[in-house]
């Protein structure tokens, strides 16, 4: 039984020998340990425990080219390698399951439908860095994920995949499921660590990086659910195989959460380098724009990434191609807007979110997002004033690159790109006190 009915390309994955994250995602029993094991689950974990040294695991993941799926795309193996080898302190691994960026809803599917895959990936990561207590920090509102993960952890302990002297290897590993307090910022890795420690969820300045001084000032690795879920497959089938997937610089597959004005919103696993156009229009994926309207724009990587216009969607979904067109792969949340969407309205929704979620620690983000929201609200309400666009641009400039954590950048990048791409629409809104395009939404 599935908790949440979400469209996936699970049947495609089941038939493919390349797609692996979603291979069993349509199997409603996959969350059970028995089913998971019957599909080869925990094989990689046993292999690691019995045949591999931690460094070999790190090397394997490094060679696979796996990059973090949480947003920043940092090479996972390299991050693991940063954990000091000679430190006498305990090390920790935290799986970041706080998934709260508007549009992103992929980790939740993995946790709900394949929780053991997440545990197995975490365990392998823990082993690689010499960690004996690992955490999964799950977004507080994800009740179903929390249930499933807790149940899976219980099963894993019962079956000896977790606990003391796992499978006779002498390796001890405990896992703690922690529910978050319901703040987007707690997905930012250092705020996540603060929150896990029982402190207010606010970002920490780096350096020190978590790999050196993280949870309780001990070396800590924070990885996204999807990043970790890919790891058992790399161990089972080898780094070489993984590299054959995707592009040279973006190896592997990636989950894209497609939402907005498309016919088939859902989660799709595709090889990196997949065509965005295909994802939007192919009947197997997005199936085209809702009501066969014209496309206005796309946010390709989550609410914090710059927009693409219809002319730009002939782009491949991988780290390097999206950077080349001035946007980012981010967390892989593709949000689609049709021609009848007022850009000011979109931005108003976004700034509302970022203003609300700013942790309040650093001045530019805390004060700047509030101010931006006030100005944008006023424009949307028809009270825009000459000079507002310039003011917005200047405020954005005073936030971008000047904050503690990337939330500040995330808040302003879509604004800046919307002004760059649709300036006349902003101008119209200010001058006429109303939207330039007729805004009709099936939802509010």
């Amino acid at each position, binding site marked *: 039984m599935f908790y949440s009915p979400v469209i996936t390309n699970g049947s495609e994955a089941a038939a493919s020998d390349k797609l692996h994250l979603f291979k069993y995602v349509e199997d409603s029993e996959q969350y059970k340990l028995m089913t998971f094991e019957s599909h080869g689950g925990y094989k990689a974990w046993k292999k690691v425990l019995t045949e591999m040294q931690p460094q070999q695991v790190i090397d394997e993941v490094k060679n696979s080219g796996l990059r973090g799926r949480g947003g920043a795309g940092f090479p996972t193996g390299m991050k693991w390698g940063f954990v000091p080898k000679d430190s006498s302190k305990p090390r920790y691994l935290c799986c970041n399951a706080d998934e709260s960026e508007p549009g992103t809803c992929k980790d939740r599917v993995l946790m709900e439908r394949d929780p053991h895959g997440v545990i197995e990936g975490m365990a392998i990561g823990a082993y690689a860095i010499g960690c004996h207590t690992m955490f999964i920090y799950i977004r507080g509102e994800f009740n179903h994920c929390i249930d499933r993960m807790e149940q899976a952890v219980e099963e894993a302990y019962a079956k000896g995949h977790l606990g003391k002297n796992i499978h006779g290897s002498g390796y001890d590993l405990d896992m703690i499921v922690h529910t978050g307090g319901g*703040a987007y*910022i707690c997905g930012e890795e250092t705020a996540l660590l603060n929150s896990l420690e029982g402190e*207010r969820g*606010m970002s*920490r*300045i780096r*350096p020190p990086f978590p790999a050196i001084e993280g949870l309780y000032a001990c070396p800590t690795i924070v990885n996204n659910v999807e990043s970790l879920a890919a790891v058992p497959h790399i161990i089972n089938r080898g780094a070489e195989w993984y590299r054959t997937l995707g592009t040279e610089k973006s190896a592997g597959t990636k989950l894209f959460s497609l939402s907005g004005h498309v016919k088939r919103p859902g989660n799709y696993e595709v090889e990196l380098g997949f065509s965005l156009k295909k994802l939007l229009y192919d009947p197997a994926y997005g199936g085209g724009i809702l009501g066969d309207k014209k496309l206005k724009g796309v946010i390709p990587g989550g609410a914090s990434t710059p927009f693409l216009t219809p002319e730009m969607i002939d782009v491949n979904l991988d780290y390097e191609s999206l950077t080349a067109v001035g946007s980012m792969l981010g967390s892989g949340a593709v949000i689609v807007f049709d021609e009848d969407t007022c850009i000011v309205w979109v931005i108003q929704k976004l700034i509302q979110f970022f*203003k*609300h*979620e*700013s*942790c*309040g*620690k*650093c*001045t*530019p983000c*805390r*004060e*700047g*997002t*509030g*101010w931006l929201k*006030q100005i944008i609200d006023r424009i949307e309400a028809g009270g825009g*004033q000459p000079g507002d666009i310039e*003011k917005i641009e200047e405020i954005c400039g*005073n936030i971008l*690159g*000047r*904050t*503690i954590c990337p939330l500040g950048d995330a808040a302003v990048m879509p604004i800046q790109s919307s002004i760059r791409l649709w300036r006349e629409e902003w101008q119209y809104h200010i001058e006429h006190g109303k939207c330039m395009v007729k805004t009709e939404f099936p939802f509010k």
Partner: protein
Amino acid sequence: MADDTRKKTTTKAVATVTLTIDGKSITVPKGTTVLEAALQNGIHIPTFCWHPKLKSVGACRMCYVEIEKMAKLQVSCATEAVEGMVVHTDSDNVKQGRRAIIEFILLNHPLDCPTCDKGGECDLQNLTFEHGYDDSRFDFRKSRFVDEGSTSTFDDVRIGPEIVLNRNRCILCYKCVRANKEAFGEYDLGAYERGNITQINSAPGEKVDNPFSGNLVEICPVGALTNSDWRYKIRVWLTKTTPSLCNFTSSGTNTLFYKEDHQNKIFRTTSRRNDDIDDGWLPDVTRYGYQIVNSPDRLRVPLIKKEGKQVEATWDEALDLIHKHFTEISDKMGSVCIGGLASPSLDNKSLYAFSKFFRTVLNSNNVDFRSDYRMLPPDAETVFSRLCSRPFKIADIDDSDVVFVFGSDLLREHPNEYLRMRKACNFNNARVFVVNPYATKAADIAALEAVYKVGSDEQAINGICLAAIDDNLVSGPKAKALAEKLSPLTLPETSKACGITVDDLRILARALAESRKISFMCGEIVTRSKERETITTAVSNLNLLFGLENKGQVASLARYANSGGACKLGVQPSPAPAVKDKLKEIWGGYPECEPHNTDSMLALMKKEEVAGFFVIGANPIMLHPDRQFVREGLEKLDFLVACDLFESETTEIADVVLPLCSWAEYDGEYVNLEGRSQRAERAVKPMFESRPGCEIIKLITAKYEKSLGEDEQLTSEIQQLLDLDSALPLPTEFMAVKVVVEDKQDEGFEIPLFVTDDPHHCGHLTEKSPSLTSFADDAYLEIGPDLAERLKLKEGDNVRVESPVGKVIVPARISEHIENDVVLIPRNFSSTPITSLLMRKKRIDRVTLSKVDS
């Protein structure tokens, strides 16, 4: 703005880096931040959230600099200086960045500067003046934390007895929350909500009343946190400052007094940061204690007893009377029948004049400065007095790898050292061990807090020694030698006797053995114990066994502002031999008569062998164990002179009462617990007719037609004594530790009582400070939840505390951290005579507790 232009002095060879800031080549130790490197070299970078004693968080973003080869502006407070870095602190880009920050901060700031107490010393005012726009681009109504519809900018939220919060002015630098957590270990203040409605506030259901909370007001860069002490009293630019010292704790915490030309009163105290001593943090008792100086209750004129009643008199009348009666007593009974007790908070000159008067004018050795010790032994050569004389450096706590506290409720006795201990732990990863008869607030940072059975202090120490021997942690010969002395004690038996498990004793032993730099501190639970000699003998063995002094410091910490000076100047009945020799040399003689300490003088009063007594600044009735005993003694006297700031239980029964100046009213020098002599300057003129101690003693001497010498002569004599190395070495041989069985318990009295100081008070004077009494104004008892449950006592219940000799009724407080059966009661409130519960010959006072039905 915190100013950190002082360079850190360090003796170790450290790696350095050289960078360029604004064209200037600068070399600093590796690990220095760009901001510190700049400040240390006279290059000013504005900051809001940075604090020299807290970890950098990079929150305000005011300290931007431009670093070549880095695309973005960097926050200098959190950027480490690296070799070859080229930094610009004043480029157009940096200026623009700062201006933007000021603009952001001012968006919703109320700009109510004319009515703000921070005006004139506000970082926001100053930095806006320097770096801001003169125009606002913000055209919305400012958001406010005030009642709906109100146009006021005031948002006076009283978040503690002293502190008022105005959230509109807060710039969210988080310094208050960070200091509370990082430096003080307190969590009564926090940040709530998110984004631009984030607010600082007291923790839900709590008050900000921790014993260091005054610092939050001082470090707040704006007028968001103010205190009742200073609010709306005066504009800061009308005040002048005078350097002074804390007169309550023994650290010699450096302070500044603020006063105004036309009024003879002090307006507030702030820190005068001295990194060797206080890091710029003041305990509240230090900050608000000055209020006693201005108190309207101060004794105004001399009083003399006429027909059983104290009546006002002139100084001359009073002095004549003293001379007349003391001479009569001397003539009749010999001058050994006159004794004196001075407060260890008096300055060097007063204390020295006091001792010199007794010894050279009266020819009596009956002088002491200890009014709260029970059953003092004759002291010169005791292990106890040796331990008290050992050198100690506060700043050396910082980089100790082990901080070991034994027999001290450090927070209450030595708040400043308590903070240093926290710093060592939080900033330098020191391991803290606390061994006490009850759990104290230090427990939260302790690697291990071992609680021993009340009254088994020496067994706890023996146990650690035996554990080390058992675990082969110390050299064979040493182990053998001590084992012989301790025989037939065994580890299991000793563990049982003191109640610390063998495992814990082993952990403590290992910590001492493995430490490379140790700070070992004993406190009042040792010094005030009747068995202090036994306990310190055990400590001496411990020191020898682990070679502690060879790798750090071991001391029993002096308790009061000038206890250190009193010892160095010989203001006790039997001074250290070196001091005594020096005094003999200076004075050309030294009284031969038998010396008596406070306790033995009081006993002699009862036998009418001491008939005249001169008390200056002390209040033995309130502080000495066994109130009845003290009162009876004093009442038997022919003649009692008491000099103090306020009327007290002791002045009440005196034949002559003289108004005494506080430390703020004259220039004085004080020796802190490190032996460091420091100066507190006169900030105000003596209140009413009060006079400094030294002057009073000189005036009395003049009545004898003698002189103690001119000021310069006294100063030079004092200097000779201070220059003397009067520290006595700890024994170099192991000694047997007499096993003390507890005195017979009085039937039915079972709960051990500890008389302590309230964390906001010290001694008998601080209850005259309104700010301090706003935290606590009367006695209460503190017990753990277990005991409370068994006795069916709830928070706030009135409880009858009864000992075999007395009883008091106080409300109950339940402290979660106390686990064993003990009861603590503060002694600072004259309305509750706590010392009436104590018996001076008992090692442990035991009481019963029962709820009083109202």
